[in-house]
């Protein structure tokens, strides 16, 4: 318990009778980078807003270092937020924006000056003190918003899709910078996004949410390699999901074929879902081929080719560096350790 910095217990949020957040439990360790990942409307932003104090949970509790903070208003929580649209004060200079929280705390001017310039150098915007908010680009405003939150040295920094409005290249840069800042400053980050790649790049731990419920909690590699259900598998990267039957330990049947696998622990003849990542299917002509089909389309994607192979009216999405022409008969092989078996969704 003691290493849990913040903890949500049976959190529920209802709006007009509909449950946006449906009884979730989670906890974050100190200095951890947690990402709440999910499609829009899954309740991730509402969860973040409850931690920040902008929404009151319908029921449940939020503990910070073991003490309930549910009844505290936002301005009494040692938590700061980086808002989706930055929310910089347009009537203040950059200096005043960053110094805002420190002014409120009545910190001496010399100390504020020192901290503001330190923050500006952290976000690589030295000398921007006197600039106006409107004269900054989106990327620069984003950095200022981060600086304005971090300067208060919060115990937890909440980030609500902070990179959503930036272009791809800038976003990738900022992802790495954010991760670096988080490790450097040793502050706990709770990050909300719908971008699975962003989540996999930055997080120590990912919570995947859908329809107000937590689908899976785990490290990026756990979630990518061992999705617990079809939703997670589908949401994290592209995958082939087919239904199958668990024959016995390490043997599974799908697509009318028996495959060796490495999973155990399901009931004999239990109906299950099978996930195979597109890069895990090998196109082969030799005897190892387990399935046979026809290449339906081949698209060049830069690093690899993306092909769709039709086998018995089933589509298999395959990524490979070797292209195969459309209409060609091919064999497919899936190695036992690349077959993931999941409980079937009710």
């Amino acid at each position, binding site marked *: 318990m003691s290493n849990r910095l913040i903890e949500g217990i049976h959190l529920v949020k209802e709006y007009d009778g509909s449950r946006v957040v449906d009884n979730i439990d989670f906890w974050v360790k100190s200095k951890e980078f947690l990402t709440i990942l999910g499609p829009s409307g899954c309740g991730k932003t509402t969860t973040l807003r409850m931690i*920040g*104090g*902008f929404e009151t949970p319908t029921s449940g509790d939020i503990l910070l270092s073991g003490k309930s903070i549910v009844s505290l*208003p*936002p*301005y009494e929580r040692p*938590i*700061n*937020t980086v*808002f*989706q*649209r930055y*929310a*910089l*004060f*347009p*009537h203040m200079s950059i200096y005043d924006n960053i110094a*805002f*929280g420190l002014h*409120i*705390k009545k910190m001496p001017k010399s100390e504020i000056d020192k901290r503001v310039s330190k923050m500006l150098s952290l976000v690589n915007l030295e000398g921007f003190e006197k600039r*106006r*908010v*409107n004269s900054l680009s989106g990327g620069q405003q984003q950095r200022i918003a981060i600086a*304005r*939150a971090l300067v*208060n040295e919060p115990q937890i920094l909440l980030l609500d899709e902070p990179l959503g409005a930036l272009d791809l290249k800038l976003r990738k840069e900022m992802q790495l910078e954010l991760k670096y800042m988080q490790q450097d400053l040793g502050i706990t980050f709770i990050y909300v996004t719908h971008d699975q790649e962003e989540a996999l790049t930055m997080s120590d731990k990912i919570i995947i949410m859908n329809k107000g419920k937590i689908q899976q909690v785990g490290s990026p590699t756990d979630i990518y390699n061992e999705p617990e259900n079809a939703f997670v598998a589908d949401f994290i990267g592209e995958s082939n999901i087919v239904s199958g039957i668990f024959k016995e330990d390490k043997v599974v049947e799908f697509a009318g074929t028996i495959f060796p696998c490495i999973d155990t622990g399901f009931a004999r003849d239990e109906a299950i879902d099978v996930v195979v990542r597109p890069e895990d299917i090998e196109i082969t002509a030799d005897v190892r081929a387990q399935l046979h089909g026809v290449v339906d389309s081949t698209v060049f994607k830069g690093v690899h080719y993306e092909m769709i192979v039709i086998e018995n009216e089933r589509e298999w999405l395959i990524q490979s560096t070797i292209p195969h022409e459309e209409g060609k008969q091919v064999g497919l092989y899936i190695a036992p350790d690349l077959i993931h078996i999941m409980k079937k969704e009710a």
Partner: protein
Amino acid sequence: MKKYSAFPYVIWTFLFILLPLLLIGYYSLTVKNSQTGELVFSLANYVNLFNPLYLKVFLNSVYLAGIATVICLILGYPMAMIISKMKHSQTVLLLFILPMWMNFLLRTYAWMAILGKNGFINQLLSLFHVQMELLYNNNAVLLGMVYNFLPFMVLPIYTVLVKMDKSLIEAAYDLGCTPWRTFRKVIFPLSLPGVISGVTMVFMPAVSTFVISDLLGGGQSVLIGNLVQEQFMKVNNWSFGSAISVILMLLILMFMTLLHRIDRKYEGGTK
């Protein structure tokens, strides 16, 4: 094409704005020769204005309009704020503006009926054997101004508040501001453009009104507007009336320049 489409507007501006202004300027700089009836160039009208009697009227007008504006702001700002936070704010706002659909004169006459000697309030007071002189003084004029012009204060402030980015308010809370400090440091400064247009829209008609002071002031409370009206309609001295109008215009111009300065200091505002 675009240039030509502005043409009717140019004509309109010239005929109904520029020309009358020039005429007023011309009249203000002339006096009527009492024998020939000819208009002769003279600065007499402006010199006349320095008569303490007229200066007092000017001061009284600015004073009353200023007080009315301040009262409108004190009443209107919280009102706009409360309405902007309501669930059905559009409907509430409509209800609030609804009385404005009635004729301005009618509404002012209604106040006469309420405040008059045998009016509603005095009838109530008579139950306690008290009589009060409520009509025909500065306070009655002030009441009329506040009542008639309050919506002009509420509307622009409401618009700014409704459009304000709510995440800015949340950001202030997030950074440690109590609700009161959030208001002082973020909400009010950001709503200044609305406050300034509200102040302008109340002060201008208030400083130049003559109907309100006529009906509720009843000659006891003379404003610039009454002076102008008198010169044109009763005394038939268009030249002096024009001179007063010119000074009134300059007064308003000065006031607006001042407000503009304040506005510029807080540029940015809502998005």
